[in-house]
């Protein structure tokens, strides 16, 4: 517990520094983002009319979204809706053809992509652990890349956060872990350097139902502890409703609806959203 609150302090200091540096450059643009709360603080993540084409295929068609400080936003949609492409704009794995991507008040195109990626936590669907590194070294990865001296302590802290006893897991190989444990390590790795924002690309999609439920509640707990902003890509509406403060439904590269789970349930904006809700049995058919 002590460890957790320490890391939380470190995180808050970091966030505060970011805020001081960026003094709300983009707050005026956010009226169309669906995330306007009347605050002047910059959004953790902000996409402004982002367009991305692959040949003749338009993956993102003028999408604008935001993730506020300490907010968890779920991007939901069918495969091909553009949700992963949008997520990857925020660590510059994808460079938009048009529009702007703002991270903590700074334009992604003005940031060095490598250091940007080291600032933003990332959890891929398959964990993406380096199979030739032990768990401890995997979790230390980002602190190591950033040259943080106390990386072993940070890694242990992150392992504790995800419910893995460091002494038991630090020296294990990824190949020796269960799918759920691997995914926990992946989450720990994303959190170890105490980023202010975490990107999660269907992080629990490949797990069985029980393990998934475990990890989902663990993740919810961690977010409550750390107040980390999170953008979560999922195709599972129930997961989105469970973990997210707001849900953004993407369809064919456009925002179909952006709302809190309650609003979405109460007032689906379109026929498509309604059917989505019915299929997921969130509301009766």
């Amino acid at each position: 517990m002590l460890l957790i609150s320490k890391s939380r302090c470190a995180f808050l200091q970091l966030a505060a520094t970011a805020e001081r540096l960026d003094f709300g450059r983009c707050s005026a643009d956010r009226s169309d983002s669906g995330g306007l709360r009347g605050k002047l603080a910059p959004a953790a993540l902000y996409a402004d009319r982002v367009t991305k084409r692959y040949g003749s295929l338009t993956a993102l068609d003028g999408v604008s979204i935001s993730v506020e400080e300490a907010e968890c936003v779920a991007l939901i949609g069918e495969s091909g809706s553009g949700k992963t492409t949008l997520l990857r704009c925020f660590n510059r794995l994808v460079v938009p053809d048009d529009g702007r991507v703002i991270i903590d008040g700074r334009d992604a195109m003005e940031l060095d992509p490598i250091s940007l990626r080291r600032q933003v936590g990332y959890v891929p669907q398959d964990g993406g652990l380096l199979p030739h590194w032990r768990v401890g070294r995997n979790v230390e990865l980002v602190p190591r890349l950033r040259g943080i001296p106390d990386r072993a302590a940070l890694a242990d802290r992150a392992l504790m956060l995800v419910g893995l006893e460091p002494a038991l897991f630090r020296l294990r190989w990824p190949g020796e872990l269960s799918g759920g444990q691997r995914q926990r390590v992946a989450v720990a790795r994303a959190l170890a350097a105490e980023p202010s924002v975490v990107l999660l690309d269907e992080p629990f999609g490949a797990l069985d139902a029980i393990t998934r439920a475990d990890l989902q509640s663990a993740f919810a707990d961690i977010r409550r502890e750390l107040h980390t902003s999170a953008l979560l890509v999922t195709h599972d509406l129930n997961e989105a409703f469970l973990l997210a403060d707001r849900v953004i439904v993407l369809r064919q590269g456009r925002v179909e609806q952006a709302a809190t789970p309650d609003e979405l349930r109460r007032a689906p904006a379109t026929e498509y959203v309604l059917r989505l809700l019915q299929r997921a049995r969130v509301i009766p058919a």
Partner: protein
Amino acid sequence: MQLGTVLLAALTLVGEPEAQMVRPVIVASKPFGESFLLAEMFAQLLESRGFRVDRRMGLGATEIAFTALRRSAIDVYPEYTGTGLLAILEQRPSSDPGQVYQQVSREFRRRFGVRWLPPLGFQNTYAIAVRRETAERLGLANLSDLERVGKSLTAGLTADFIGRPDGLPGLQKTYGLQFRAVRALLPAVKYRALASGDVDVIDGYSTDGFIARYDLVILKDDRRFFPPYEAAALVSPALQRDLPAAAGVLSELSGLLTEEAMRRLNQRIEVDGIPVGRVAAGQLMSLGLVRQPAGIPGTSSGDHRSPGLLSYLWDQRVTIVSLTIRHLLLVGVSLLAAIAVALPLGLALERGRRAAETVIRGIGVLQTLPSIALLAFMIPLLGIGVVPALVALFLYSLYPILRNTYTGVRDAAPAAVSAAAALGMTPGQVLGYVRLPLAAPTIMAGIRTAAVINVGTATLAAFIGAGGLGDPIAAGLALSDTRMILSGALPAAVLALLVDAVLGLCERVVTPGR
């Protein structure tokens, strides 16, 4: 570059412990018994007159030996006038030995600067031989008799004979010959194949010791197709310039060797298994050219073929160890060079994948070239000896290493690679920390494949005079000496296993834990 020079020097030194100021005379032979014997006689004669000799016995065949001589990569080897006329000058034969000698003598000097010393005194013409039983059953005495029964017979001929105009093609034209089948056989096995009935007709040499041993019948060349094949020493331009006295010494042998004597000497080597060095020394002494044998290689080792393989190997242990070291150096140097080229190239191709398949396939084509052909191609460019062998082995090693590097790096745990990049590794870090370590076992497997293939291929380097464990194999094949073949082949096999085992350990070391 300096490292390369040092390694080359090291390779050379393994073969020759002492280094003197006067350059050695490089004596070579083609890969069959009589050529070994004549070359050994040249060598010992020169040594007895104070020349230093470097032996390059058993060079590939006429093409390889002559190209080497023409470029002065070797200084002297025994050749036959008929071969010179037909295979090298590609001129029509005459049946008069004197005229043929005049012709090759004049033409070789004019075209290549190469000199024929006066003939040694005997002819060794091609002899088409059949089993006595076949000859009696089919009533064969002359080559023209084959015309009527050839279709029922299988011929086992040396590759040399099948290809050259004074061989099978001309024979077919002159005698209207048709065989049921023609099989290419190594000189070392053709007599056994004939005796065992696998083939019915072979090409031999009229001075072969085996003809008597296997009770064969030589069919008479009644249409005088085969030109005269007078044996003589062929001398390089460089030797005539650098050490003209050496050519003078060699010509002391001219006219002294009769066909009868050669048949007897060949039989002692090929049938009785007496070491070439010993037979050569004995003959030189009985000709009164050399007084007493002094430190002649091969003379001290065992008598006939009585001792077993193991004691033979034990007798040869010093030679085998030095050949093995030389072999390892050939393999090691070429392999290291191939790693130094193929590894970065594989990584580069992984970055520019569009060109990858084309480049890799292009290099793969090298793999399809028969090794002996590749070695032969090297001679006009690089001469003979260590350098062309290294280049050939290097070329053979490229493909497995390149292919495995490319595939290994390309396919290394894609999820881990993309996660590493997404978490902020630079491309260089992704390569160094993720792709290369994960590809390491695959790359090592490629290196291992290349190394084991190389140990085998390097035995062929003997045919272009690079030494190594191929030397006793080539000589043993030429002399039909199984023990000699095995004294090269067994260590080569053991070496291949050892190299594989050691690299297997390396592979385990570089395999990331999981």
